[in-house]
Protein backbone atom coordinates (compact mmCIF):
# COMPACT_ATOMS: atom_id res chain seq x y z
CA UNK A 1 0.00 0.00 0.00
CA UNK A 2 1.25 3.46 -0.84
CA UNK A 3 2.32 5.35 2.25
CA UNK A 4 0.78 8.76 2.61
CA UNK A 5 3.12 11.51 3.74
CA UNK A 6 1.67 13.69 6.43
CA UNK A 7 0.19 16.70 4.69
CA UNK A 8 2.40 19.74 5.20
CA UNK A 9 0.43 22.54 6.84
CA UNK A 10 -0.36 25.61 4.80
CA UNK A 11 1.87 28.65 5.18
CA UNK A 12 0.41 31.89 3.88
CA UNK A 13 3.07 34.53 4.29
CA UNK A 14 5.50 34.94 1.39
CA UNK A 15 8.83 33.21 1.90
CA UNK A 16 12.25 33.20 0.28
CA UNK A 17 12.28 31.85 -3.27
CA UNK A 18 14.13 28.75 -4.49
CA UNK A 19 15.16 30.59 -7.65
CA UNK A 20 16.80 33.32 -5.56
CA UNK A 21 18.39 30.68 -3.35
CA UNK A 22 19.95 29.11 -6.45
CA UNK A 23 21.25 32.54 -7.51
CA UNK A 24 22.96 33.15 -4.16
CA UNK A 25 24.46 29.67 -4.26
CA UNK A 26 25.89 30.30 -7.70
CA UNK A 27 27.45 33.47 -6.35
CA UNK A 28 29.02 31.50 -3.51
CA UNK A 29 30.44 29.21 -6.17
CA UNK A 30 32.15 32.22 -7.78
CA UNK A 31 30.00 32.17 -10.90
CA UNK A 32 30.65 35.23 -13.08
CA UNK A 33 27.39 35.51 -15.00
CA UNK A 34 24.01 33.90 -14.45
CA UNK A 35 21.30 33.75 -17.08
CA UNK A 36 17.79 33.65 -15.68
CA UNK A 37 15.70 31.83 -18.25
CA UNK A 38 12.32 33.42 -17.77
CA UNK A 39 10.28 36.63 -17.59
CA UNK A 40 12.21 39.91 -17.37
CA UNK A 41 10.96 40.83 -13.88
CA UNK A 42 11.64 37.49 -12.26
CA UNK A 43 13.72 37.82 -9.07
CA UNK A 44 14.53 41.38 -10.06
CA UNK A 45 15.42 42.74 -6.66
CA UNK A 46 17.90 40.03 -5.82
CA UNK A 47 19.32 39.86 -9.32
CA UNK A 48 20.13 43.53 -8.94
CA UNK A 49 21.60 43.12 -5.45
CA UNK A 50 23.85 40.28 -6.52
CA UNK A 51 25.53 42.61 -8.95
CA UNK A 52 26.88 44.42 -5.89
CA UNK A 53 28.76 41.22 -5.19
CA UNK A 54 30.22 41.26 -8.65
CA UNK A 55 28.06 38.57 -10.20
CA UNK A 56 26.23 39.59 -13.35
CA UNK A 57 22.64 38.48 -13.73
CA UNK A 58 20.91 38.69 -17.10
CA UNK A 59 17.53 37.45 -18.27
CA UNK A 60 16.23 35.85 -21.45
CA UNK A 61 13.15 38.06 -21.00
CA UNK A 62 10.55 35.50 -22.01
CA UNK A 63 7.30 37.18 -22.97
CA UNK A 64 3.87 35.91 -23.98
CA UNK A 65 5.30 34.71 -27.28
CA UNK A 66 8.08 32.90 -25.49
CA UNK A 67 5.62 31.18 -23.18
CA UNK A 68 3.67 29.92 -26.17
CA UNK A 69 6.43 29.15 -28.66
CA UNK A 70 9.23 28.24 -26.28
CA UNK A 71 12.37 30.12 -25.32
CA UNK A 72 15.14 27.99 -26.75
CA UNK A 73 16.28 30.55 -29.33
CA UNK A 74 16.25 33.34 -26.77
CA UNK A 75 18.42 31.30 -24.43
CA UNK A 76 20.89 30.49 -27.18
CA UNK A 77 21.08 34.16 -28.14
CA UNK A 78 21.62 35.36 -24.58
CA UNK A 79 24.20 32.66 -23.90
CA UNK A 80 26.18 33.68 -26.97
CA UNK A 81 25.94 37.36 -26.02
CA UNK A 82 27.03 36.66 -22.45
CA UNK A 83 30.13 34.83 -23.64
CA UNK A 84 31.02 37.64 -26.01
CA UNK A 85 30.29 40.56 -23.69
CA UNK A 86 31.53 39.32 -20.33
CA UNK A 87 34.06 36.67 -21.27
CA UNK A 88 33.10 34.73 -18.12
CA UNK A 89 35.09 31.90 -16.59
CA UNK A 90 32.01 30.28 -15.15
CA UNK A 91 28.39 30.60 -16.29
CA UNK A 92 25.13 29.69 -14.56
CA UNK A 93 21.76 29.12 -16.19
CA UNK A 94 18.80 29.19 -13.83
CA UNK A 95 15.25 28.16 -14.64
CA UNK A 96 12.09 29.96 -13.54
CA UNK A 97 8.48 28.84 -13.12
CA UNK A 98 7.65 30.02 -16.60
CA UNK A 99 10.40 28.16 -18.43
CA UNK A 100 10.08 25.01 -16.35
CA UNK A 101 6.32 24.73 -16.81
CA UNK A 102 6.62 24.87 -20.58
CA UNK A 103 9.33 22.22 -20.49
CA UNK A 104 12.42 24.17 -21.54
CA UNK A 105 15.57 22.06 -21.60
CA UNK A 106 18.38 24.38 -20.47
CA UNK A 107 20.91 21.83 -21.63
CA UNK A 108 19.80 22.00 -25.26
CA UNK A 109 21.04 25.57 -25.54
CA UNK A 110 24.35 24.63 -23.94
CA UNK A 111 24.76 21.73 -26.36
CA UNK A 112 24.09 24.05 -29.24
CA UNK A 113 26.40 26.88 -28.17
CA UNK A 114 29.20 24.67 -26.76
CA UNK A 115 30.87 27.23 -24.48
CA UNK A 116 34.44 26.34 -23.49
CA UNK A 117 33.86 27.30 -19.85
CA UNK A 118 31.83 25.32 -17.30
CA UNK A 119 28.09 25.98 -17.26
CA UNK A 120 26.05 25.20 -14.15
CA UNK A 121 22.46 24.49 -15.18
CA UNK A 122 19.75 24.62 -12.51
CA UNK A 123 16.27 23.38 -13.46
CA UNK A 124 14.64 25.28 -10.62
CA UNK A 125 11.34 27.09 -10.21
CA UNK A 126 9.84 28.96 -7.25
CA UNK A 127 7.22 26.38 -6.41
CA UNK A 128 9.11 24.49 -3.74
CA UNK A 129 7.97 24.66 -0.17
CA UNK A 130 11.48 25.22 1.20
CA UNK A 131 13.80 27.57 -0.61
CA UNK A 132 16.74 25.37 0.40
CA UNK A 133 15.65 23.15 -2.50
CA UNK A 134 17.09 25.79 -4.83
CA UNK A 135 20.44 25.59 -3.05
CA UNK A 136 20.53 21.80 -3.25
CA UNK A 137 19.69 21.85 -6.94
CA UNK A 138 22.45 24.36 -7.69
CA UNK A 139 24.93 22.30 -5.69
CA UNK A 140 23.88 19.07 -7.43
CA UNK A 141 24.58 20.69 -10.73
CA UNK A 142 27.91 22.07 -9.49
CA UNK A 143 28.82 18.58 -8.34
CA UNK A 144 27.89 17.14 -11.72
CA UNK A 145 30.16 19.65 -13.46
CA UNK A 146 33.02 18.89 -11.09
CA UNK A 147 33.06 22.33 -9.46
CA UNK A 148 32.60 21.04 -5.92
CA UNK A 149 33.65 17.75 -4.35
CA UNK A 150 31.33 14.98 -3.28
CA UNK A 151 32.40 15.59 0.34
CA UNK A 152 31.55 19.30 0.20
CA UNK A 153 28.24 18.48 -1.44
CA UNK A 154 27.28 16.04 1.28
CA UNK A 155 28.36 18.53 3.93
CA UNK A 156 26.22 21.27 2.41
CA UNK A 157 23.26 18.98 2.01
CA UNK A 158 23.35 17.99 5.66
CA UNK A 159 23.55 21.67 6.67
CA UNK A 160 20.61 22.58 4.46
CA UNK A 161 18.52 19.83 5.96
CA UNK A 162 19.26 21.32 9.37
CA UNK A 163 18.48 24.82 8.10
CA UNK A 164 15.09 23.62 6.87
CA UNK A 165 14.38 22.07 10.25
CA UNK A 166 15.43 25.23 12.09
CA UNK A 167 12.91 27.23 10.03
CA UNK A 168 10.21 24.65 10.68
CA UNK A 169 10.81 24.63 14.40
CA UNK A 170 11.02 28.31 15.21
CA UNK A 171 11.41 30.19 11.95
CA UNK A 172 9.60 31.33 8.83
CA UNK A 173 7.97 27.93 8.29
CA UNK A 174 6.76 27.46 11.85
CA UNK A 175 3.25 28.86 11.53
CA UNK A 176 0.39 29.17 9.09
CA UNK A 177 0.74 32.94 9.20
CA UNK A 178 3.38 35.09 10.85
CA UNK A 179 2.69 38.74 11.46
CA UNK A 180 5.61 41.00 10.56
CA UNK A 181 6.81 43.02 13.53
CA UNK A 182 9.42 45.76 13.93
CA UNK A 183 10.62 44.35 17.24
CA UNK A 184 11.40 46.22 20.45
CA UNK A 185 12.66 49.78 20.52
CA UNK A 186 16.43 49.74 20.10
CA UNK A 187 16.90 52.61 22.53
CA UNK A 188 15.05 50.80 25.30
CA UNK A 189 16.70 47.44 24.70
CA UNK A 190 20.13 49.08 24.62
CA UNK A 191 19.30 50.81 27.90
CA UNK A 192 18.44 47.55 29.59
CA UNK A 193 21.56 45.84 28.23
CA UNK A 194 23.80 48.63 29.50
CA UNK A 195 22.10 48.46 32.88
CA UNK A 196 22.99 44.77 33.21
CA UNK A 197 26.57 45.40 32.13
CA UNK A 198 26.91 48.23 34.63
CA UNK A 199 25.62 45.96 37.38
CA UNK A 200 28.59 43.74 36.65
CA UNK A 201 26.44 40.94 35.30
CA UNK A 202 28.12 38.27 33.22
CA UNK A 203 27.06 37.97 29.61
CA UNK A 204 27.46 35.84 26.51
CA UNK A 205 27.95 37.65 23.24
CA UNK A 206 27.11 35.27 20.40
CA UNK A 207 27.34 35.77 16.65
CA UNK A 208 25.49 33.05 14.74
CA UNK A 209 24.89 34.66 11.38
CA UNK A 210 24.10 33.38 7.93
CA UNK A 211 26.89 33.99 5.44
CA UNK A 212 27.44 37.63 4.44
CA UNK A 213 24.83 38.95 6.87
CA UNK A 214 27.62 38.53 9.44
CA UNK A 215 29.18 41.71 8.06
CA UNK A 216 26.52 43.66 9.93
CA UNK A 217 25.54 41.28 12.70
CA UNK A 218 29.17 41.17 13.84
CA UNK A 219 28.96 44.91 14.43
CA UNK A 220 26.41 44.28 17.17
CA UNK A 221 28.68 41.85 18.98
CA UNK A 222 31.56 44.23 18.47
CA UNK A 223 29.56 47.09 19.97
CA UNK A 224 28.57 44.99 22.99
CA UNK A 225 32.21 44.13 23.66
CA UNK A 226 33.26 47.75 23.15
CA UNK A 227 30.69 49.27 25.50
CA UNK A 228 31.42 46.67 28.18
CA UNK A 229 35.10 47.50 27.86
CA UNK A 230 34.39 51.18 28.10
CA UNK A 231 32.27 50.69 31.21
CA UNK A 232 35.07 48.68 32.79
CA UNK A 233 33.39 45.31 32.60
CA UNK A 234 35.03 43.95 29.46
CA UNK A 235 36.14 40.78 31.23
CA UNK A 236 32.54 39.84 32.06
CA UNK A 237 31.72 39.21 28.42
CA UNK A 238 32.42 35.96 26.56
CA UNK A 239 32.47 36.15 22.78
CA UNK A 240 31.44 33.27 20.50
CA UNK A 241 31.34 33.62 16.73
CA UNK A 242 30.64 31.38 13.73
CA UNK A 243 33.67 32.64 11.82
CA UNK A 244 35.63 29.47 11.11
CA UNK A 245 37.42 30.25 7.84
CA UNK A 246 38.42 26.66 7.12
CA UNK A 247 35.00 25.43 6.04
CA UNK A 248 32.50 26.18 3.30
CA UNK A 249 32.50 27.53 -0.21
CA UNK A 250 35.25 29.98 -1.21
CA UNK A 251 33.23 33.14 -0.64
CA UNK A 252 32.09 32.10 2.83
CA UNK A 253 35.68 31.37 3.91
CA UNK A 254 36.86 34.67 2.50
CA UNK A 255 34.14 36.58 4.32
CA UNK A 256 34.84 34.82 7.62
CA UNK A 257 38.49 35.84 7.34
CA UNK A 258 37.63 39.45 6.51
CA UNK A 259 35.27 39.81 9.45
CA UNK A 260 37.69 38.12 11.83
CA UNK A 261 40.51 40.43 10.76
CA UNK A 262 38.27 43.44 11.28
CA UNK A 263 37.23 42.28 14.73
CA UNK A 264 40.80 41.59 15.77
CA UNK A 265 41.95 44.95 14.59
CA UNK A 266 39.28 46.59 16.75
CA UNK A 267 40.46 44.69 19.81
CA UNK A 268 37.63 42.14 19.88
CA UNK A 269 38.75 38.92 21.48
CA UNK A 270 37.24 35.73 20.09
CA UNK A 271 36.84 33.23 22.91
CA UNK A 272 35.12 30.49 20.96
CA UNK A 273 34.67 29.70 17.30
CA UNK A 274 31.39 27.83 17.02
CA UNK A 275 31.43 27.05 13.29
CA UNK A 276 31.68 28.52 9.81
CA UNK A 277 29.47 31.09 8.12
CA UNK A 278 27.40 28.42 6.42
CA UNK A 279 27.07 26.44 9.64
CA UNK A 280 24.51 28.73 11.27
CA UNK A 281 21.93 25.91 11.46
CA UNK A 282 24.26 23.76 13.60
CA UNK A 283 26.72 26.21 15.19
CA UNK A 284 24.07 26.94 17.82
CA UNK A 285 24.45 23.36 19.04
CA UNK A 286 28.18 23.85 19.50
CA UNK A 287 27.51 27.07 21.40
CA UNK A 288 24.91 25.24 23.48
CA UNK A 289 27.45 22.57 24.44
CA UNK A 290 30.10 25.11 25.41
CA UNK A 291 27.59 27.10 27.44
CA UNK A 292 26.49 23.93 29.23
CA UNK A 293 30.08 23.12 30.13
CA UNK A 294 31.32 26.54 31.13
CA UNK A 295 28.80 29.35 31.27
CA UNK A 296 25.46 28.02 32.43
CA UNK A 297 25.47 30.46 35.35
CA UNK A 298 25.75 33.55 33.15
CA UNK A 299 23.15 36.28 33.51
CA UNK A 300 22.39 37.40 29.99
CA UNK A 301 23.11 36.61 26.36
CA UNK A 302 23.16 38.71 23.22
CA UNK A 303 22.57 36.56 20.13
CA UNK A 304 22.76 38.08 16.69
CA UNK A 305 22.03 36.58 13.28
CA UNK A 306 19.89 33.47 13.49
CA UNK A 307 19.06 33.47 17.22
CA UNK A 308 16.33 30.87 16.80
CA UNK A 309 18.92 28.26 15.84
CA UNK A 310 20.36 28.33 19.37
CA UNK A 311 18.79 25.63 21.58
CA UNK A 312 17.16 27.02 24.71
CA UNK A 313 18.44 24.26 27.09
CA UNK A 314 21.28 26.15 28.68
CA UNK A 315 20.18 29.75 28.18
CA UNK A 316 16.67 29.37 29.55
CA UNK A 317 17.44 31.24 32.74
CA UNK A 318 19.36 34.08 31.12
CA UNK A 319 17.90 37.39 30.00
CA UNK A 320 18.04 37.08 26.23
CA UNK A 321 18.70 39.86 23.76
CA UNK A 322 18.32 38.69 20.20
CA UNK A 323 18.98 40.59 17.02
CA UNK A 324 17.43 39.39 13.77
CA UNK A 325 16.86 40.84 10.32
CA UNK A 326 13.50 39.16 9.82
CA UNK A 327 10.38 41.09 10.85
CA UNK A 328 8.58 37.73 10.80
CA UNK A 329 11.10 36.29 13.25
CA UNK A 330 10.04 38.51 16.14
CA UNK A 331 6.94 36.59 17.20
CA UNK A 332 8.60 33.13 17.14
CA UNK A 333 11.60 34.46 19.11
CA UNK A 334 9.36 35.98 21.78
CA UNK A 335 7.49 32.69 22.00
CA UNK A 336 10.76 30.84 22.50
CA UNK A 337 11.47 33.02 25.52
CA UNK A 338 13.71 35.75 24.17
CA UNK A 339 12.92 38.80 26.31
CA UNK A 340 14.21 41.42 23.93
CA UNK A 341 14.05 41.15 20.16
CA UNK A 342 15.60 43.79 17.96
CA UNK A 343 15.17 43.91 14.19
CA UNK A 344 17.86 45.27 11.91
CA UNK A 345 15.55 46.08 9.05
CA UNK A 346 16.88 45.65 5.47
CA UNK A 347 20.16 44.28 6.72
CA UNK A 348 20.95 41.89 3.90
CA UNK A 349 21.18 44.40 1.04
CA UNK A 350 23.73 46.40 3.03
CA UNK A 351 26.00 43.38 3.36
CA UNK A 352 26.43 42.70 -0.34
CA UNK A 353 29.55 43.88 -2.09
CA UNK A 354 31.38 44.66 1.17
CA UNK A 355 34.59 43.31 2.68
CA UNK A 356 34.48 45.10 6.03
CA UNK A 357 32.10 45.18 8.96
CA UNK A 358 29.12 47.46 8.32
CA UNK A 359 27.67 49.59 11.09
CA UNK A 360 24.37 48.39 12.55
CA UNK A 361 21.66 50.55 14.08
CA UNK A 362 21.68 48.66 17.33
CA UNK A 363 25.47 48.81 17.52
CA UNK A 364 25.39 52.54 16.84
CA UNK A 365 22.72 53.01 19.53
CA UNK A 366 24.82 51.21 22.13
CA UNK A 367 27.92 53.22 21.29
CA UNK A 368 26.03 56.48 21.34
CA UNK A 369 24.56 55.75 24.76
CA UNK A 370 27.95 55.28 26.42
CA UNK A 371 29.62 58.07 24.53
CA UNK A 372 29.99 60.27 27.59
CA UNK A 373 30.54 57.50 30.11
Amino acid at each position, binding site marked *: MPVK*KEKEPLIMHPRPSSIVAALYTLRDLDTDVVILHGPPGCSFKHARLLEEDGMRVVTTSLDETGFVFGGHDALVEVLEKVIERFNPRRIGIVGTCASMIIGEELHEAVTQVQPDVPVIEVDVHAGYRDNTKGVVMALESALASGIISEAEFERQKALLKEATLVEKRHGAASKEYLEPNRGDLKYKVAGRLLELIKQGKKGLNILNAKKETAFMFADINLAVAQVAQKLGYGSNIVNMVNLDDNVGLPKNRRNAREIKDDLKEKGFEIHHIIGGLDEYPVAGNTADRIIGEKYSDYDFAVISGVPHALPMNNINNMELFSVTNGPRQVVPLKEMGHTHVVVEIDLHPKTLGVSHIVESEFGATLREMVKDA
Partner: protein
Amino acid sequence: MPKQIAIYGKGGIGKSSTASNVAAACADEGYRVTIIGCDPKSDSSITLLQGRRIPTIMDLMREGIDIKEEDIVFNGYKGVKCLEIGGPEPGIGCAGRGIIVAISLLKKISRAIEDTDLVIYDVPGDIVCGGFVAPVKKGLVNEAYVLTSGEYMPLYAANNICKGLSRLEMTLNGVICNSRGALNEEKIVSEFAKEVGSQLLAFIPKDVLVQTCERDGYSVIEKAPDSQIAAVYRKLAKSIMGKRDGKIPVPLDDARLRELTRI
Protein backbone atom coordinates in the same frame (compact mmCIF):
# COMPACT_ATOMS: atom_id res chain seq x y z
CA MET B 1 19.53 -0.89 -22.88
CA PRO B 2 15.89 -1.68 -23.66
CA LYS B 3 14.18 -0.62 -26.83
CA GLN B 4 12.37 2.57 -25.88
CA ILE B 5 9.67 3.60 -28.29
CA ALA B 6 6.96 6.23 -28.56
CA ILE B 7 3.94 6.03 -30.84
CA TYR B 8 2.66 9.32 -32.22
CA GLY B 9 -0.34 10.10 -34.37
CA LYS B 10 -3.49 12.12 -34.74
CA GLY B 11 -5.87 12.07 -31.80
CA GLY B 12 -8.15 9.03 -31.84
CA ILE B 13 -6.34 7.32 -34.69
CA GLY B 14 -5.63 4.18 -32.63
CA LYS B 15 -2.32 4.72 -30.83
CA SER B 16 -3.42 3.28 -27.51
CA SER B 17 -5.05 0.18 -29.00
CA THR B 18 -2.03 -0.42 -31.20
CA ALA B 19 0.34 0.12 -28.27
CA SER B 20 -1.47 -2.32 -25.98
CA ASN B 21 -1.83 -4.97 -28.68
CA VAL B 22 1.84 -4.70 -29.59
CA ALA B 23 2.73 -4.88 -25.89
CA ALA B 24 0.62 -8.02 -25.47
CA ALA B 25 2.08 -9.61 -28.62
CA CYS B 26 5.63 -8.96 -27.42
CA ALA B 27 4.79 -10.42 -24.02
CA ASP B 28 3.54 -13.56 -25.81
CA GLU B 29 6.95 -13.82 -27.44
CA GLY B 30 8.56 -13.79 -24.01
CA TYR B 31 9.78 -10.20 -24.02
CA ARG B 32 9.63 -8.14 -20.86
CA VAL B 33 7.47 -5.14 -21.73
CA THR B 34 6.68 -1.86 -19.96
CA ILE B 35 3.93 0.46 -21.14
CA ILE B 36 3.78 4.04 -19.92
CA GLY B 37 0.60 5.97 -20.57
CA CYS B 38 1.38 9.67 -20.97
CA ASP B 39 -2.23 10.70 -21.45
CA PRO B 40 -4.16 12.54 -18.72
CA LYS B 41 -7.16 10.33 -19.56
CA SER B 42 -4.96 7.35 -18.56
CA ASP B 43 -6.41 4.78 -20.94
CA SER B 44 -3.23 3.17 -22.28
CA SER B 45 -3.10 0.08 -20.13
CA ILE B 46 -6.75 -0.69 -19.39
CA THR B 47 -6.94 -3.46 -21.96
CA LEU B 48 -3.87 -5.13 -20.47
CA LEU B 49 -5.42 -5.08 -17.01
CA GLN B 50 -8.79 -6.65 -17.79
CA GLY B 51 -10.46 -3.28 -17.69
CA ARG B 52 -9.04 -2.28 -14.32
CA ARG B 53 -7.95 1.31 -13.73
CA ILE B 54 -4.72 1.78 -11.83
CA PRO B 55 -3.75 4.75 -9.65
CA THR B 56 -1.85 7.31 -11.73
CA ILE B 57 1.47 8.87 -10.79
CA MET B 58 -0.04 12.36 -10.70
CA ASP B 59 -2.94 11.19 -8.51
CA LEU B 60 -0.52 9.82 -5.95
CA MET B 61 1.61 12.95 -6.10
CA ARG B 62 -1.40 15.10 -5.51
CA GLU B 63 -2.27 13.03 -2.45
CA GLY B 64 1.19 13.73 -1.10
CA ILE B 65 2.38 10.15 -1.26
CA ASP B 66 6.05 9.34 -1.03
CA ILE B 67 5.97 7.37 -4.27
CA LYS B 68 7.74 4.03 -4.48
CA GLU B 69 8.02 1.95 -7.60
CA GLU B 70 5.50 -0.62 -6.36
CA ASP B 71 2.85 2.10 -5.95
CA ILE B 72 2.79 2.91 -9.64
CA VAL B 73 3.88 -0.20 -11.54
CA PHE B 74 1.19 -2.86 -12.05
CA ASN B 75 1.49 -6.25 -13.69
CA GLY B 76 -0.83 -6.70 -16.63
CA TYR B 77 -1.26 -9.39 -19.28
CA LYS B 78 1.63 -11.86 -19.08
CA GLY B 79 3.60 -9.59 -16.78
CA VAL B 80 3.50 -6.45 -18.93
CA LYS B 81 4.37 -3.63 -16.54
CA CYS B 82 1.74 -0.92 -16.72
CA LEU B 83 2.16 2.71 -15.60
CA GLU B 84 -0.17 5.65 -16.07
CA ILE B 85 1.06 9.22 -15.62
CA GLY B 86 -2.42 10.69 -15.45
CA GLY B 87 -3.08 14.38 -15.05
CA PRO B 88 -5.80 16.98 -14.67
CA GLU B 89 -9.33 16.97 -16.05
CA PRO B 90 -9.58 18.65 -19.46
CA GLY B 91 -9.49 22.43 -19.18
CA ILE B 92 -7.70 22.61 -15.84
CA GLY B 93 -4.07 23.03 -14.86
CA CYS B 94 -1.20 21.89 -17.05
CA ALA B 95 -1.02 18.26 -18.19
CA GLY B 96 2.31 18.84 -19.94
CA ARG B 97 3.98 19.86 -16.69
CA GLY B 98 2.56 16.70 -15.16
CA ILE B 99 4.40 14.59 -17.70
CA ILE B 100 7.67 16.43 -17.06
CA VAL B 101 7.36 15.94 -13.30
CA ALA B 102 6.36 12.28 -13.63
CA ILE B 103 9.14 11.48 -16.09
CA SER B 104 11.75 13.03 -13.76
CA LEU B 105 10.36 10.93 -10.92
CA LEU B 106 10.41 7.77 -13.04
CA LYS B 107 14.02 8.36 -13.96
CA LYS B 108 14.84 8.48 -10.27
CA ILE B 109 12.81 5.65 -8.81
CA SER B 110 11.88 3.17 -11.49
CA ARG B 111 13.67 0.03 -12.58
CA ALA B 112 10.70 -0.77 -14.83
CA ILE B 113 12.08 1.49 -17.53
CA GLU B 114 15.52 -0.12 -17.37
CA ASP B 115 15.20 -3.80 -16.47
CA THR B 116 13.03 -4.62 -19.44
CA ASP B 117 13.24 -5.35 -23.18
CA LEU B 118 10.70 -2.86 -24.51
CA VAL B 119 9.30 0.38 -23.14
CA ILE B 120 6.34 1.88 -24.97
CA TYR B 121 5.35 5.50 -24.33
CA ASP B 122 1.76 6.08 -25.36
CA VAL B 123 1.36 9.80 -25.98
CA PRO B 124 -1.93 11.59 -26.68
CA GLY B 125 -2.83 13.32 -29.91
CA ASP B 126 -0.29 15.22 -31.98
CA ILE B 127 2.84 16.58 -30.31
CA VAL B 128 1.27 19.24 -28.10
CA CYS B 129 3.31 21.38 -25.68
CA GLY B 130 6.84 20.78 -24.44
CA GLY B 131 5.62 18.38 -21.77
CA PHE B 132 4.36 15.80 -24.22
CA VAL B 133 7.80 15.34 -25.75
CA ALA B 134 9.45 15.14 -22.32
CA PRO B 135 10.16 11.40 -22.74
CA VAL B 136 12.09 12.24 -25.92
CA LYS B 137 13.76 15.36 -24.53
CA LYS B 138 14.85 13.62 -21.34
CA GLY B 139 16.47 10.92 -23.45
CA LEU B 140 14.05 8.13 -22.56
CA VAL B 141 12.91 7.41 -26.11
CA ASN B 142 15.23 6.10 -28.78
CA GLU B 143 12.70 5.13 -31.46
CA ALA B 144 9.62 6.94 -32.68
CA TYR B 145 6.75 5.50 -34.71
CA VAL B 146 3.94 7.32 -36.48
CA LEU B 147 0.47 5.88 -36.78
CA THR B 148 -1.85 7.19 -39.48
CA SER B 149 -4.63 6.28 -41.84
CA GLY B 150 -4.65 7.20 -45.52
CA GLU B 151 -7.01 10.16 -45.04
CA TYR B 152 -5.82 13.70 -45.43
CA MET B 153 -6.18 14.95 -41.84
CA PRO B 154 -4.43 12.03 -40.13
CA LEU B 155 -1.64 12.29 -42.71
CA TYR B 156 -1.47 16.02 -42.13
CA ALA B 157 -1.02 15.31 -38.41
CA ALA B 158 1.55 12.60 -39.17
CA ASN B 159 3.48 15.05 -41.30
CA ASN B 160 3.39 17.62 -38.51
CA ILE B 161 4.76 15.03 -36.14
CA CYS B 162 7.62 14.46 -38.61
CA LYS B 163 8.32 18.19 -38.38
CA GLY B 164 8.42 17.93 -34.62
CA LEU B 165 10.69 14.90 -34.69
CA SER B 166 13.14 16.49 -37.08
CA ARG B 167 13.27 19.59 -34.91
CA LEU B 168 14.10 17.39 -31.94
CA GLU B 169 16.60 15.48 -34.09
CA MET B 170 14.71 12.32 -33.28
CA THR B 171 14.65 9.43 -35.70
CA LEU B 172 11.48 8.05 -37.23
CA ASN B 173 11.68 4.26 -37.17
CA GLY B 174 8.57 3.38 -39.04
CA VAL B 175 5.08 4.35 -40.17
CA ILE B 176 2.08 2.20 -39.28
CA CYS B 177 -1.17 2.38 -41.18
CA ASN B 178 -4.29 1.92 -39.08
CA SER B 179 -6.92 1.62 -41.72
CA ARG B 180 -10.09 3.62 -41.80
CA GLY B 181 -11.09 2.16 -45.12
CA ALA B 182 -9.96 5.02 -47.37
CA LEU B 183 -9.45 4.32 -51.04
CA ASN B 184 -5.92 3.08 -51.94
CA GLU B 185 -5.06 3.50 -48.30
CA GLU B 186 -2.07 1.15 -48.07
CA LYS B 187 -0.51 2.63 -51.17
CA ILE B 188 -0.96 6.21 -49.94
CA VAL B 189 0.55 5.59 -46.52
CA SER B 190 3.34 3.50 -47.98
CA GLU B 191 4.22 6.34 -50.36
CA PHE B 192 4.04 8.89 -47.54
CA ALA B 193 6.39 6.75 -45.44
CA LYS B 194 8.88 6.52 -48.25
CA GLU B 195 8.81 10.24 -48.97
CA VAL B 196 9.47 11.28 -45.39
CA GLY B 197 12.38 8.87 -45.37
CA SER B 198 10.89 5.87 -43.62
CA GLN B 199 8.89 2.74 -44.43
CA LEU B 200 5.47 1.26 -43.88
CA LEU B 201 5.72 -1.38 -41.16
CA ALA B 202 2.19 -2.70 -41.05
CA PHE B 203 -1.25 -2.26 -42.47
CA ILE B 204 -3.78 -2.84 -39.71
CA PRO B 205 -7.25 -3.38 -41.15
CA LYS B 206 -10.29 -1.87 -39.55
CA ASP B 207 -11.82 -4.65 -37.48
CA VAL B 208 -14.68 -4.38 -35.05
CA LEU B 209 -12.98 -7.03 -32.86
CA VAL B 210 -10.58 -4.34 -31.66
CA GLN B 211 -13.52 -2.40 -30.27
CA THR B 212 -15.47 -5.32 -28.81
CA CYS B 213 -12.41 -6.70 -27.01
CA GLU B 214 -11.59 -3.20 -25.81
CA ARG B 215 -15.09 -2.79 -24.42
CA ASP B 216 -14.61 -5.92 -22.33
CA GLY B 217 -11.22 -4.72 -21.13
CA TYR B 218 -8.94 -6.87 -23.28
CA SER B 219 -6.51 -6.69 -26.15
CA VAL B 220 -7.35 -8.81 -29.20
CA ILE B 221 -4.14 -10.73 -28.48
CA GLU B 222 -5.63 -11.90 -25.20
CA LYS B 223 -9.31 -12.21 -26.06
CA ALA B 224 -9.15 -13.27 -29.71
CA PRO B 225 -5.66 -14.73 -30.13
CA ASP B 226 -6.58 -16.70 -33.25
CA SER B 227 -8.16 -13.80 -35.11
CA GLN B 228 -6.71 -12.37 -38.27
CA ILE B 229 -6.20 -8.99 -36.68
CA ALA B 230 -4.23 -10.58 -33.82
CA ALA B 231 -1.87 -12.00 -36.42
CA VAL B 232 -1.39 -8.52 -37.87
CA TYR B 233 -0.43 -7.10 -34.46
CA ARG B 234 1.96 -10.03 -33.93
CA LYS B 235 3.67 -9.33 -37.20
CA LEU B 236 3.96 -5.65 -36.33
CA ALA B 237 5.39 -6.55 -32.91
CA LYS B 238 8.03 -8.74 -34.57
CA SER B 239 8.94 -6.04 -36.97
CA ILE B 240 9.31 -3.48 -34.13
CA MET B 241 11.46 -5.85 -32.09
CA GLY B 242 13.63 -6.72 -35.11
CA LYS B 243 16.65 -4.44 -35.35
CA ARG B 244 16.10 -1.52 -37.67
CA ASP B 245 17.68 1.88 -37.94
CA GLY B 246 15.61 5.01 -38.15
CA LYS B 247 16.27 8.25 -39.92
CA ILE B 248 15.42 11.80 -38.98
CA PRO B 249 12.29 12.36 -41.09
CA VAL B 250 11.95 14.99 -43.80
CA PRO B 251 8.42 16.41 -43.67
CA LEU B 252 6.50 17.00 -46.90
CA ASP B 253 5.02 20.29 -48.00
CA ASP B 254 1.29 20.64 -47.87
CA ALA B 255 0.74 20.57 -51.65
CA ARG B 256 2.52 17.24 -51.92
CA LEU B 257 0.51 15.89 -49.02
CA ARG B 258 -2.78 16.80 -50.70
CA GLU B 259 -1.60 15.25 -53.95
CA LEU B 260 -0.70 12.03 -52.15
CA THR B 261 -4.17 11.50 -50.75
CA ARG B 262 -5.59 11.74 -54.27
CA ILE B 263 -3.69 8.69 -55.58
